[in-house]
């Protein structure tokens, strides 16, 4: 067995396209623009429409979570030979119990967020469902990082 870091280097694919977006907490007015921008790029690159739909749905829920629960985030979208991938790293309150947050229906959303059509506790499970790979890491009072990808084949 190789030690993990060596294996990572060997497994890392070439990045064909990458773009980073910034998302601001509480910015409901622009909520959805990052998902829309990434969708346009994927269309231009000729990516299959079912792949675009799955990643775009995940991206929109991810973006809204930053707007609802975090201060700000860097959202990095990359295209690799075998997958489209997102790493969204936010600064914010973090998630104390990830197991709970991943449960369908569990939510700390406010009434105002529900009035915007979010906050049913479906976001994180739906990001996971639309991804082929999904990882979430969080440190309370520091922030949350989501990594997810959809395979191109």
């Amino acid at each position, binding site marked *: 067995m190789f030690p993990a870091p060596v294996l990572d280097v060997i497994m890392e694919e070439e990045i064909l396209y990458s773009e980073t977006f910034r998302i601001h907490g509480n910015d*409901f*007015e622009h*909520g*959805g*623009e990052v*998902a*829309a921008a990434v*969708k346009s790029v994927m269309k231009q690159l000729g990516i299959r*429409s079912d792949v675009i*739909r799955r990643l*775009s*749905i995940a*991206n*929109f*829920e991810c973006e*809204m979570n930053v707007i609802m629960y975090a201060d700000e985030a860097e959202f990095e979208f990359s295209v690799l030979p075998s997958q489209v991938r997102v790493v969204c790293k936010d600064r914010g309150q973090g998630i104390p119990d990830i197991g709970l947050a991943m449960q369908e229906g569990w939510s700390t959303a406010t009434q105002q967020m*529900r009035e*915007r*059509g*979010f*906050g*049913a506790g*479906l*976001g994180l*499970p*739906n990001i996971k*469902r639309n991804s082929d790979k999904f990882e979430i890491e969080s440190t309370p009072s520091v922030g949350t990082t989501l990594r997810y990808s959809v395979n191109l084949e």
Partner: protein
Amino acid sequence: MRLSEIQKLLNCELISDALSSDPDIEQCFAADLMSDVLAYSTSEAILITGLSSIQSVHTADVADLRAIIFVHDKRPGPQVVELARNKKIPLLTTKLNLFDACGVLHGKGLKGA
């Protein structure tokens, strides 16, 4: 069923520009909760909703929905209309409530998405 037929059945007013295309619609999804739409809808359907914020158009865009019908005579603001125009998603509004709008279309053979 053509979108123009749905427009007539629900007595809809067209909010965005004239229908650039008149897509054939087989399925509808109705919800005020955009997370529901994102979790359970299928592509090519139309969305019937009482939510007229900008997120309704982003939802239709990422979920590949063909049009949005707002119930209760709701009218989105100019930025929402502008975004829908750019994304080529027709916006319509009906005076009917969500239940009645769905009932009319269901009665005419449209299916839930």
